[in-house]
């Protein structure tokens, strides 16, 4: 056959390009179906519990105690803000939210500064015992808090620091230092040496080199550290429980909620709203700055 008749015959049987692509994609999707199904199940397992809490927190307490949260989507709807109102006012969640802020923000700012100074010395100054001291810092990363509670509490009692904010700021600073120093020292150490050499050639002092050169360049690492430390302190229970106690004027959200748990027993529906109030801020921080949080974790070491 001539070339022309071949092509005209073939033209009869040619499948349109679009449907060929669609059918190929469909086949590929069906092959992948088990993977997609499993992933959807996993996503449900991870999402449903939090969703359950969110839905429950908008329901009247009496309904939470007697029916499942999924029934909230059947008419008639009974959504209400009662639990939130109660949590924020009578249960003191509003006060404890402010306490949490008042604890977390300084407890994030102070360790970063103190750690930055030490990290800079470890990274760019040489002194005898430097490596040994830094290995000590690495070792301290895993020391359990429990080993420090009794002596420090005794110290605080003697100095009247128990139940005070400066007391807990200092405690969180110290506990956060090993991780912060480790992270920042690794980051500072990766800055190019010529950067400092040219700065010193231009007559810069150590002071200007640190504040005008190193710190601005280290913003990603400092951002990661800040988020990590903030979430750690915001979500902490044990340190606040030990050094602050449960007094409403100073207790952060974690302590206040745990007290609600033990005191409410049967009336625990209030906890749904309380827990969600405590989750809002970290969730917002997380979603907004997820990139920094993740890179902080990936920086090779973790908070013990």
């Amino acid at each position, binding site marked *: 056959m001539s070339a022309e008749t071949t092509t005209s015959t073939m033209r009869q049987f040619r499948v349109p390009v679009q449907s060929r692509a669609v059918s190929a994609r469909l086949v590929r999707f069906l092959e*992948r179906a088990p*993977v997609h199904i499993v*992933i959807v199940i*996993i*996503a449900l397992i*991870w*999402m*449903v*519990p939090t969703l*359950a*809490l969110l839905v429950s927190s908008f329901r009247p307490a009496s309904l*939470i*105690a007697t*029916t*499942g949260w999924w029934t909230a989507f059947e008419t008639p709807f009974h959504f209400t803000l009662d639990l939130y109102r109660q949590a924020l006012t009578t249960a003191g969640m509003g006060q404890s939210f402010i306490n949490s802020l*008042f604890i977390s*923000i300084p407890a994030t700012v*102070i360790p970063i*500064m*103190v750690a930055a*100074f*030490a990290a800079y*010395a470890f990274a760019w*100054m040489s*002194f005898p015992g430097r490596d040994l001291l830094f*290995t000590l*810092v690495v*070792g301290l*990363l*895993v020391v*359990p*808090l*429990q*080993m420090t*509670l*009794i*002596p*420090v509490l005794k110290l605080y009692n003697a100095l009247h620091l128990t139940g005070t904010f400066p007391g807990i*700021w*200092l405690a969180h600073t*110290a*506990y956060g230092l*090993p991780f912060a120093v480790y992270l920042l020292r690794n980051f500072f*150490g990766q800055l190019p040496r010529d950067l400092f050499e040219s700065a010193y050639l231009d007559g810069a002092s*150590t*002071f200007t080199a*640190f504040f005008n050169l190193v710190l601005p360049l280290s913003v990603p690492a400092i951002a990661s550290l800040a988020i990590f430390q903030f979430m750690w302190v915001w979500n902490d*229970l044990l340190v606040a*429980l030990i050094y602050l106690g449960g007094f409403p004027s100073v207790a952060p959200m*974690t302590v206040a*909620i*745990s007290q609600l748990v033990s005191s409410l027993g049967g009336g625990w529906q209030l*906890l*749904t709203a309380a827990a969600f109030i405590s989750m809002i801020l970290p969730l917002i*921080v*997380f979603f907004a700055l997820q990139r920094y949080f*993740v890179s902080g*974790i990936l920086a*090779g070491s*973790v908070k013990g």
Partner: protein
Amino acid sequence: MLVSRLVTGIVVIVGVPAATVGYIALIEGLLSLVPPKARGQIRPWLWVAPAFVLLIVYLIYPVINTLYLSFMNADSTKFVGLSNYITFFTAQTTLTALRNNILWLIFSTGLVVTLGLLFAVLFDKVRYEAAVKALVFIPMAISFVAAGIIWKLMYDYQPLGQPQTGTLNAIVTALNGQPIAWLIDPGTNNAALIWVGVWMWTGFSLVILSAGLKGIPQDIIEAGRVDGATEWQILRSITVPMMSSTIIVVATTMVINALKAFDVVYVLTNGNYGTDVIANQMYKQMFTFTNFGLASAIAVVLLVAIVPVMLVNIRRFRAQEAMR
């Protein structure tokens, strides 16, 4: 009161950085008075001083002091030798706590690492990987206390005949089973608590292992496929060995978390019904019974259990340093 708090807050947030900057300005100023040769020798010590003062006061001294207190009696007035440790290893309450921590160790570490790895491999195959990873990672943002409450709701129990309020029991009864008191029944309660921990930390493991997975050169995996290996064989013989150092990072972190597990147990069961853990026991001895000797001994046991992990970390750190 709010206004005074706000003012104090602003003073602190502005004042503390100002004070720390002032500290550096001060020491640099002082150093300029010192002969140039000594300057470089003294300077590092001044820069690390604030950090080290805090570390000594809050970490190093307390560790030594706790060790000392563990050999004393309840109010630290009399030396009692090893009797606190003997109590720890013979009393029913502490032995149960020890057993539970071992359960946490094996299962929470095992599950978190395994699930993290499986999820990492699985999610790698789909285009919406980033979204699912974020979803699994979300629980890391909330406190253990909040997670405890979330799962308290999930585990809720109503006697048979009444409508179920807990999601899990609703599923169980929908499948014609008996509702289970997840947190009270000794057959399920430890598993239920451990699962909360796993739910929270799998995201962490997933993120790290996923990064490690993407670091494996694709040609090696392709070569394995070309040679006819199944996905499972590739996972076992290529992927896992090549990710061993990343897996160790996750595993060591989870081991430490398992040993220190406190919040979840404290909030959900307070250690009742046989769910107690060492950290909770220590808290009880410290505050409810004010037995500082026993509490210190418990803390020391915890430290000793963590020392192997510390050594692994240090060895890994040294290896990394050698490559710098």
